[in-house]
Structure formats: C-alpha cells, structure tokens
C-alpha cells in the first residue's frame, strides 16, 4: 500500500512516532493516521510495522502507555512520550538532518 518501499521507512518510523506524540497522548490508530496525514498521504504505515515499533519503544522506555477512553467510547491504549523519548527524538532529529544534508549534497548537485 505504501508508495515507498518499507526499507525507506525503516529507522525513521521511530522518530516519526516520537515527533507525532509531542502533541499529546494518542492511541495507535491515531498515530498511524497522523503520519499518513502529516506526509500528505505519501507515507502509509502498515499495522505490521506500527504496532511492533510501539511495543519496542515502550520496552525501551521512550513511551509510556495507559488505558483511556477513545472517541468511540471504548477502552483504548494511549501512548505518551517519556523524558527518555524526548531525548531520543532530539538525537534522532539531529542524526536525520545531518544524514539528509549529506545525501542531498550529492543528489541535489548532480
């Protein structure tokens, strides 16, 4: 479904999730939707990538989860950013910027 191969997303998905969550706690579906909307539909995150990433980030302590009530009035798991998550986002952002700049230096010049 994605218009880019999964490899492209790999490694940047964590950073995207962290960034999205700076806006406040969200459940999984909303996070996926926000990434899709935020990229103008260019990136569509599959369930098979999104949820494992969320669980792994929870294990690393970047995210916290708690049960809340969703817009459907149902019990849903809401994720929030932890302090460690915020630090991770900062370093991911810096790394990505440097990487993109380096790649651009070749690709754009050509």
């Amino acid at each position: 479904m994605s218009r880019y191969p999964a490899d492209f997303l790999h490694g940047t998905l964590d950073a995207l999730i962290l960034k999205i969550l700076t806006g406040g706690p969200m459940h999984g579906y909303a996070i996926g939707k926000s990434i899709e909307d935020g990229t103008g539909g260019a990136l569509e995150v599959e369930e098979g990538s999104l949820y494992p990433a969320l669980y792994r980030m929870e294990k690393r302590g970047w995210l916290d989860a708690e049960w809340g009530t969703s817009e459907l009035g149902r019990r849903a798991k809401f994720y929030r950013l932890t302090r460690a998550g915020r630090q991770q986002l900062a370093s991911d952002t810096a790394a990505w910027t440097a990487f993109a700049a380096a790649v651009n230096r070749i690709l754009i010049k050509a």
Partner: protein
Amino acid sequence: MALRQRLRSLIWRVPVEVEVHEELAHHVELRTQELIDRGVDPIEARAEARRRLQDGRIEAELTRIGRRRNDSWARKEWLDELKQDISFALRQCRTHPGFTLAAVLTLAIGIGATTAIFSVVHAVVLKPYAYPEPDRVLLTYSIWRGNRGSWSVGNFNYFDQRLTTTTHFAAASGVNLNLADDDQPERVVGRRVTHDFFPLFGIQPALGRIFTPDEDQPGRTNVVVLSHRLWQRRFNGDRTIVGRAIRINGESYDVVGVMPAAFDEIGDTSEAWVPIGFTPEQLAMFDEFYLDAYARIKPDVSMAQVNDEFARVAHSLAADHPDLNRERSAGADLWSTFHVGDYRLRLFVLLAVVGLVLLIACGNVANLLLARLAARSRELAIRAAIGAGRGRIVRQILTESLVLATFGGVAGLILAWWALPVLIRLAPDGVPRLTTTTLNGPVLAAAAALVGASALVVGLLPAWQVGRRRSFTEDLGDGKGALSGAMKPWMRQTLIGAQAALVMVVLAGAALLVRSSINLQQEPIGFDYHGVLTARIALPEAQYGSPDAARAAYRSVLERVQTSPGVRAAALDSQAPLTPGGGSNGLLPEGKTVGDLIQSTSHFVTPQYFSVVNTPFRSGRAFTDADIRQAELVMIINETLARAAFGSESAIGKRISCCEGAPGKPHYKTVVGVVADVKSRGPAQPARPEFYLPLMQIPDVAWTWTGRSLVIMTRGDDVPAMTSAIRGAVKAVDSTLPVFRIWTLDESLSRIMAQARFNTLLMTMLAATGLILAALGIYSVIAWLVAQRTREIGVRMALGASARDVIGIMSAHGVKPVVAGLAIGVVGALATTRLLQNQLFEVGPRDPLTLAATALLLLIVGGAAAAIPAWRATTIDPSTALRE
C-alpha cells in the same frame, strides 16, 4: 517518573494477551469505520481491516514483544528494589554504628580466618601441581614384606628395560654438594638423577639445556643443572652462568642449564642436579636400596594397569635374581598424593574447625539482627501497611544481612591478607608448597561464597521470624507490640544452644591437642640432650675417596675440637639423635636364619660418644681407643635391639653379623654393651632397634654409605664457643669444607615438635575465639531478656524475691540451652575427634577426662556469661523498674 510508571503498571497491569487483543480490536474498529466513511460496503470494510492484521501474525508478534517488555520491566523493578534495600541497609548501618561494628567485626574474624586457612588448603592440597598432567606422574617404590622402600640400581635398571606402561622412568638420589667457587664454601642439597628426570616432569629449562642421554654414562657426569633458587641466591641470577665451570666437591662442573622457578614447586627440594652415571658394576648391584624412582605413565593407561605391570615385572625380577628379591614387589602412587601426605587430612580438619568458628560468629550476628528487628517492629509494620508484601520484607532483611556480610568479607580479606604472612612464618618447616600461598582468584571466589553463605545463615532465622507473620497491625502501636513480643526467646536460645554445641566440638579437639602436647613435653627422650651442639660436615670424594684420608681428616678435626675452650666432651656420630639423615642395616644375630634380619639404625661413633650424650648403660662397657680394626670387632646395642635379638637373655658376649660379609658368610661383632633406649626421632616416635660401631672399626665400604659425612657433637655450656670451636677446627683442616646444620639438640627437638606445637596453637586460638564469641552471644541474649523483663523483675523484687532467685531465674534462660547444646556437642565431638587421631599422643580421641574437662569449662564460661547480665538486673531499683 519511575515511581509513577511503576504504580501505573501495578494498577493497570493486565495479561499481555488481553492487552494486545483489545488494542488491535480497537484498531480494527476504527479502520472499519474509516473504510465505511469512504464508501466501502460495511462487511467488506471489516474484512479488509481484519485482513490487514495478517491472520493473527501481528497479534502473535505483539504478544511476544509485550512479554519481553514485561520481563524487562520486572527485572528493572527488582533491581530498583534491590537498590532501595541496599541504600536502606546502608542507612541502617550509619544510624546504628555500634551494632554494625559488632556485626562486621564478628563476621570479619570468621570470614577472614576461614579465607586464610582456605588459601593454605588451596596452595598445599587443591592447587594443581606446576608440571603438565600431574595425574600421570608417579612415585614408585619397591615393597619388601609390606613396607615401601627405595630401589637398588640393579632393580631400577631391570624395570627400566621392561616397563611398557610408562613414557619415562627416572631415578634420583640425594647428594651433598659442597660449592666452593670463592672463599664462601656452602653445602647445597642436590640430587643425582638419570637424564629422564626432567622430561618426566615436563618442565623446560629457563636457560641452557637439561641432561642428554649420553650424560648417563660414567665419566661424562661433570655437568650440573641449577635450580632457580640457587641461581638467584648464589649467582645473583647471572645469565652468563650457563657454559661456565663451577667447583663442586672439589671438582670442576660445567653449568649446562638453569630450571625455572616453577620447578622449585614440584616437590623436589634440591637446589642442583648432577647426572647419576651408573657404572656397569653398579647396574649389576641388586642390593643397597637407596634410589627414588619416578614414572610418567602413558595417556591411555590406568593406575591399576601400572601397578599390575610393576607387580608382574617384580615377579620376573624375583625369579631372575632371587637372593635379594624373593620377597620383593613394586608399586606406584601419584607423586602429588605422596608429596602432600597427611597434610591433606590435617588441613581439611583445620578448615572444618575454622568453618565451625565462622558458624559460631554467624550465630552471634543472627542474634544481634534478631534484637535489631525486635526494636524495629514498628517500622516493619508500617512497611507492611503501605503495601510491602511479606516476600518483600523478607528480601529486605536478607539484603541487610548480605550488606553486613559483604562488609565483614572485605574486612575479613584485609585480616587474611595481614595474617597470612604471619601464619606462614610461624608454620613449621616442611609443609609442601606452603610458601606459594596467596589470595588468588580461587581464594577470592571462596571468600565471596563465604560472604553469601554467611548472609544466608545470619539472615535466615530473622527473615523466617518476620516472614511467617500474617499481620503486623498490632505492631503499629508503641513499638513494643506483637512482633517484639512474638520474638520469643526460644529462637535466640536455640541459637546459643547451637553455638554451645559447635564450641564443644572445637574445644574438645583443641583440648585433646593440648593434652598431647603436654604428654609430648613430659615424655622422656632417654638421654641428656641439654647442652649438646651438633654440626655436620661431608668430605668430598675427590680428595677423601680413600677411607684412610677420611679417617685422618676426622681424627684431626676431632682432636682440635676436643681441646678447644668451652668444649667439655666431643665425639663423632654418623647420625646424631633428633637430627635428620642416617641409615640402617639388616642385623643377623648368631644362630638365626636370614629371615630373621633385624633392620636397625646404625651409629658409627668415636669412644667419647656416650659421655657426650650421657646415655645410661644397662650393662657392659663403652667403646675405648683400644677398639681398633685389628682388635676384636665389637658392638653396642640398645635395649629394643637386645630384646629383639636375644629376648630376656643377657646380650653381653653374644655375636651379631652386620655391615659386611655376604649371605651365608656372616661377619660377626661381639656385643660389649647395652644402652638405654633413646627416642632418637622425637618423643612421639617409639624407640627402634639401634646399634653402635666404633668409627675406627667400620669396614671401608661404610664410608661410602655415609657419603663420608659425619656429625660432630660437643657438650658444654657455651654454645657460641662450641660453634666457633667446630668452625675453627674444620677450617684448620680444610678451608673449603662447609659446616652445616649447626644446631643444639634443644633446637632439633623443638624443630621436631614444631608441627604439633603449631597445630595446637592454631586449634587453641580457634577454640578460644569460638568460646569468646559464644560467651558474647549468651551474654547478649540474657542482657536482652533482662531488658525486656525489667518490669517483671521489679515486681518480683518488690514482692520479696532475693537477688539469688532473680539471678537463678534469668541465667537459667542461658544455661539451659548451653547444657542442651553441650550434650549435642559431646556427641559431635565423640563422632569427629578421631580425625585428629594421627596428631594425638598418649591420649585417646574419646578421652573421657578431656571431654569432661572441656564440658566443665564451657559450662563455667556459659554460666558466667549468663549470670553477669542477670546479676546486673538485680541492681535495678524496684521503684524505677516499676515506673517503666
């Protein structure tokens, strides 16, 4: 943050399966809604949303990750709690320095002593030997009538040509090496060896080479390999020594190699080795048993196979050379086992005893901890009230005991590090590998294990005490509530009972050793050894090969010594009593058959000998200057030999064949005197048959048996004067001759007793430590009980109870468990003291008098430890006590 997360996960925690299932169900719900909103048919939309979850594969993956996530949280929580417990325990240590100091010091003594002894056990017994595959290196022996002994050259050679289970078979024989390179003559203990000796142990030389097979030939033997020790001491580690010539026993020897330091620890105390170079005549000699022989066995061969082959070859040897080998067999043992000898048992007994002392120390700390917990019952109740489970509180208590044990362990290691060199210096000579003792990796691991074990022993009772409580609510009150009340004295009494039992065992062992020691001190040696100085010299073969030259040299030395100031009497002996060395011969009384040979210790002496040592004569006469080779050949024997040879008949005038002649051609000497038995190997060893020949009558061959080495003995009051008399006389006769083993017989005796004295000292120190610790434990329990019952004591005294009554009632709480523990301890002592059997002298391992005295001592000390705090209770003013 961490706390919030923990609280939340505590409150919200649901099984991972439920968590994942609910989360994905919610996702499907929203996705379906989205698709419907885009105009997809609702049934189609739900199917599409489900399909995107890949038939449950995502659910399974999330469950797996979630489980790992929960595990890692649990670990983190456990670590967090441990950190909390440790920091709480450290705070407890800071706020109760007295308690902490007492507990840590007690554990330090126990753990330190145990670690120190373990390090010795490791160095002497457990550590593998420094040569490759130590379990293949054997000491072999020839067996004659059940006794293990040395090899003759002929027998060794016979085996060497036939053995198939060994890769190496080597012979060695001790030799005195007089080093006289410069003006400092020195006598060095060396060995003459066959070339296979070094490859057998498998250690390469540090410098140069070892012996080649052709250096086994006579005439090519003037080469020497130095030990690391000698190389360092005498040649200052000079690497150019290899290839140089040094003077040994008056001849020039080429230094061909130097062995590494590791070779000093294989169990050979020699400092230099020279080739043994058997001559064809020697190879044909099947008597004269003086060789040690070692073997390295092939990898796929078992000990049983080796011993089978030795027995088989011995059998064919007996058939080929029946004269001396008819009753002879052969066998082999691990060299390491032989070398460690009975130190294995002794050291393990010591380790067990020090372990018991550690247990006693743990008992004390457990007692202290119980008292601390009683005082902290309120705090524990609060912890329980805010949600700490019982398991959590138990863990906290075990953590506290672990912290105490760790401090105790560190302090104990410092103690061991400080005490080890002292212990090694005090230890008697001859404990194999003792000086290699260090606090190395295995020892540190053992110390860590001791810390863990001590923490468990210390913490288990207190933790159990707290853990079995269902409710702590009663303790929330004034802190004197249910937990402190429930801390029933029986538990602490059990502890002091157990301590009493352990102390009883240790004390009984120590008491037996002390009694043996006293018995040894009082055992008569059989002659007047005070005021006798001995010194040994050895005449090298090169200058003194002819017996005439040796006789002349000794006569001249003796004349000079005799006339020196400070010397009242002087004599020569081939083997002075109480000193090492010497040989024995098979004696055949006239009229007996060859089967009745009496193996007897030989003394070749000058006439003055008996007035130097003052041995009482039972009958007959001493030697005189008239007893020369041309006169009638005479002999003096001791009582044991007289009894063995002639029973109750008078020995004087009877004849005994010895030392020369051949089977079937006896060479008789006439017995002219019988002297009293002498305990010549120390008070613990029974007297053996001994005989004396006049030095001037011995056959020429006897000079080679003794290696032309004799002991000069002088009697006098002034030891320095006698020492310089001997040194001066020897120097005047031959300035290159080293004088060695210059000892008074008092020193020799104390050297023989050093082992027993050291063991007794260690055991007594350990027993005293255990007794003091147990007394402190009893004291603290009774003091605690008294503090608990101050009010009751006040009431009793107000109602007219006498101080006596109060002391009786209170100290009974300590004395009763001590008596019970004592009974158990006596049973324990009866079961275990036989391990000391080989260290005891004229006292049985179950000696009732010793056990009774030990029990009495323990009872008195225990009673006093209980009575002192009880007595202090009676000094309380009743009105004060009642107001409490």
